[in-house]
C-alpha cells in the first residue's frame, strides 16, 4: 500500500466521525508555605502570627465563639475528550473528563481569644462543611446600630 493511501486509510475514520480533546491547565492562587504552617503551634500561636506567616486567608468563617480561617489554592491539569459519530440516522456521542473539582488548602481554627486550637489540611469543601456551632452571644448587649 502506498504512503498516501495509508494516510488516507488512517484519516478516514476521523473524517467519518469526530474526536476532539481539550487539555486544560488551571492555577488558582498560590500554596502557603509548608514550613510556615508547621511553625504554628496549637494552643500557643495567635492570629497575628498566622496572618504574618501565611498572608491574607481566602475565607474567614464564624465558628461558635471563635473562627476558622482558610487558605486555599489549586494547581491542576485535566483532559476532556469528546467523540461523536453518525452512522445513517443514528448519532452517538461519548465524553470523558477527568477534571479536578476539589480545592485543597489549610484551615486554622481559633478560639474567642484568637488562640490557635487546631490546624487541618485537606479539601476546603470538606473541612468547612462541618456542622456550624451555635453563634456566641456575648454579655453586654448587642452592638450599637446606626439609627
Amino acid at each position, binding site marked *: 500500500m502506498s504512503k498516501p493511501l495509508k494516510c488516507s486509510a488512517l484519516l478516514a475514520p476521523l473524517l467519518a466521525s469526530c474526536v476532539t480533546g481539550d*487539555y*486544560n491547565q488551571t492555577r488558582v492562587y498560590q500554596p502557603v508555605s509548608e514550613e510556615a504552617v508547621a511553625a504554628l503551634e496549637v494552643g500557643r500561636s495567635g*492570629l*497575628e502570627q498566622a496572618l504574618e506567616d501565611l498572608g491574607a486567608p481566602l475565607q*474567614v468563617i464564624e465558628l461558635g465563639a471563635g473562627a476558622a480561617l482558610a487558605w486555599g489554592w489549586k494547581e491542576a491539569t485535566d483532559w476532556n475528550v469528546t467523540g461523536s459519530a453518525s452512522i445513517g440516522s443514528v448519532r452517538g456521542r461519548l465524553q470523558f473528563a477527568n477534571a479536578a473539582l476539589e480545592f485543597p488548602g489549610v484551615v486554622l481554627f481559633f478560639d474567642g481569644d484568637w488562640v490557635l486550637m487546631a490546624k487541618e489540611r485537606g479539601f476546603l469543601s470538606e473541612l468547612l462543611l462541618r456542622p456550624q456551632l451555635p453563634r*456566641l452571644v456575648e454579655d453586654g448587649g448587642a452592638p450599637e446600630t446606626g439609627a
Partner: protein
Amino acid sequence: MTTLTLSPLRRLAPLLLAVSVLPGCFFSRSQTNPELSPELASQIIPAQSTAADVTELLGAPNEVVQLGLRTAWRYEHTVEKQSAAFLVFLGLRGVDTQSDRVWVFFDSEGNVTNIGTQFQASEAEYDVPIF
C-alpha cells in the same frame, strides 16, 4: 551550472502548514474590583486605626464577616489570565487566577486589631500548557 530555486508555493509551504495546524489561539485578561495598593494597606495599623480610617483608605469592603461582636472585612482584587491554542482536534488552554487580598479584623468598638495582606495579582501569567 544549474541553480535550484523553490517555487513560491513551496517557499510558503511551511507557513501554510503552520496555519493549517494552528487554526486559532486567544488570550484574555479579566479582573474584578479595583487594584489594592500595598502602600495604602500599610497605613492601617492595629490598635491605632479605626473602621473609619479603613474605609477612607480602601473604600467599602467586598465582604463583612460577623465574628460575635467583632467583624472582619475582606478587600479583594482578582486578575485572571487565560490563553489557548486550538490545534486540529485538540485545544490547549491555560487559566491563571491570582489576587491581591486584604483582611482587616476589628474589635467590638470598631478598632483594628489585626490585618492580613497578600499581593499576588500581578503574578498571573499567560501559559498555554505543553504536555
